[in-house]
């Protein structure tokens, strides 16, 4: 049971990061029907900028929380600018082009951003300076049970706050209603006096701002940043958005959390489930090797990444519209 609880905590943490990134994909898709494949790279840039700032401030005697806050506040405007520029320079001129054109552009942008990061931050994995001392809190009464760290708590709380803030923005403010109106019918939105170009640019910028925070969270969680880190992360968050139903905000959040949990539980149990030693009775050769390594398994937890894509494939096969689908009324 402890593995389960522990992996649930890990999964929720990772899942809330996926959810934040997935929201960026889904918001942009909702408003311009475009998969912004460069979104993962925006997360990476957030992690990189925060790395630079934290490294610079690590030697100062600022409190750790202040350092991370400053780093996040630096990453947000940088990423928002990148997100804005992606839309303004690359996607807007292609808004009326066949759908393949912006899709290929997105992949190209993703490569360009990776290479820019490579030039600025080098090809080496960059260790995040450990300004925050990790503290573990026990979740159970016995000593070696499941734990939750202060970093995990911070990630969970920050994500919850951002998701709540975003939902309030989208459902309770004039700008949010204008974003939803633009998503539904751009030309009619224009007839309301809404400058749709501005609303679309703001949508990209908001998604990128969320991505910046996600980048800082991933960097702090794994303690490392790398110019290619956005690729897999972006694909997973995209899978989460598809799982929840692309274009649907609640779906992105649900999909992100579910994906994180599926992945963590999968990683936690795949070794046991594919443990070859259970087959010792039938295969003598296995029995021998199990004497030295009782955990001999077909797949180890390094297969974690596979789960996201298994989920993606399963969704595309069995429920292409995702869990929460695309509500038909939204498109009317």
């Amino acid at each position, binding site marked *: 049971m402890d593995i389960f609880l522990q992996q649930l905590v890990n999964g929720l943490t990772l899942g809330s990061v996926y959810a934040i990134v997935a929201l960026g994909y889904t918001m942009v898709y909702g408003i311009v029907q475009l998969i912004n494949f460069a979104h993962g790279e925006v997360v990476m840039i957030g992690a990189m900028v925060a790395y630079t700032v934290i490294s610079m401030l690590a030697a100062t005697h600022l409190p750790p929380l202040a350092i991370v806050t400053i780093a996040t506040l630096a990453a947000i405007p940088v990423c928002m600018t990148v997100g804005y520029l992606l839309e303004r320079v690359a996607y807007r001129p292609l808004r009326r082009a066949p759908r393949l054109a912006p899709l290929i552009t997105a992949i190209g942008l993703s490569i360009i951003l990776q290479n820019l990061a490579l030039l600025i931050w080098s090809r080496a994995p960059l260790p995040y300076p450990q300004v925050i001392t990790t503290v573990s809190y026990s979740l159970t009464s016995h000593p070696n049970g499941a734990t939750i760290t202060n970093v995990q708590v911070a990630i969970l709380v920050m994500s919850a706050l951002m998701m709540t803030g975003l939902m309030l923005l989208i459902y309770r403010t004039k700008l949010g209603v204008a974003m*939803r109106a633009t998503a539904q019918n751009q*030309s009619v*939105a*224009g*007839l*309301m*006096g809404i400058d749709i170009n501005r609303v679309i640019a703001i949508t990209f910028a908001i998604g990128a701002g969320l991505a910046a925070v996600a980048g800082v969270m991933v960097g702090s969680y794994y303690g490392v940043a790398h110019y290619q880190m956005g690729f897999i992360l972006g694909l997973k968050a995209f899978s989460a958005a598809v799982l929840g139903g692309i274009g649907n905000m609640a779906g992105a959040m649900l999909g992100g959390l579910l994906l994180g949990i599926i992945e963590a539980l999968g990683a936690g149990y795949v070794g046991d489930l594919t443990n070859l030693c259970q087959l010792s009775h039938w295969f003598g050769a296995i029995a021998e090797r199990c004497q030295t390594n009782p955990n001999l398994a077909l797949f180890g937890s390094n297969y974690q990444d596979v789960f996201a894509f298994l989920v993606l494939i399963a969704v595309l096969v069995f429920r292409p519209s995702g869990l929460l689908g695309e*509500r038909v*009324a939204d*498109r009317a």
Partner: protein
Amino acid sequence: MDDPPPLLVLDKLAVAYGEIRAVKGIDVVVGKGELVCLIGANGAGKTTTLKGICGTQPVRSGTVRYDGEDITGMASFRLVRKGLVMVPEGRGVFGGLTIEENLGMGAYIRSDRAGIAEDLARIYDLFPRLRERRRQTAGTLSGGEQQMLAIGRAMMARPRLLLLDEPSMGLAPLMVQKVFETVLAVAKSGVTILLIEQNAKLALEVSSRGYVMESGEITLEGDARALLRDPKVRAAYLGAA
């Protein structure tokens, strides 16, 4: 007679979709406070005329003047700020937004909270159905109710010139009656209206002047009563011999 300058002047306006010349250089004038209708059969070019005015379809040649200013090709979102508001063909309500959110979007360009609340109350008084259902998504409304919402939403912008594209389309007779009553009430409140209609009889009855459009050209124009009596109009649009 010292007429005030007209609010809208189309001067040899031509609008095309690639090779298809849908509007072939028409002259239309709408005076301040007037209710003018533009009638014609399917495909005559009525909707395209409005698209040309609102900048949603590029103008091929000619000009659109509004309140003395050349607004040819100006983006629709800028025109709303000048008081030129269109209710598009097919109503264009935001089906996934609530009634109240739709009406709120009508007032997007405004920031006078008190005035907006006042106008909202007035529109709810005019259309009690909308008040009852204000928290429902607009996609759940009937066609007639959606038309009321579309007109109400346009009124939320406090327009000076309202362009209405076939507000009676697809509605039952009783609803059509209600829509025309509403249009008249809006006109009486001082809003200038250019009304596009296929229901020529009703349109001419509420209007002061009318234009008849055929394959992209204005073929007849004049006093609405005179047009109602015109044998050509009667034969072509009023179903009379």
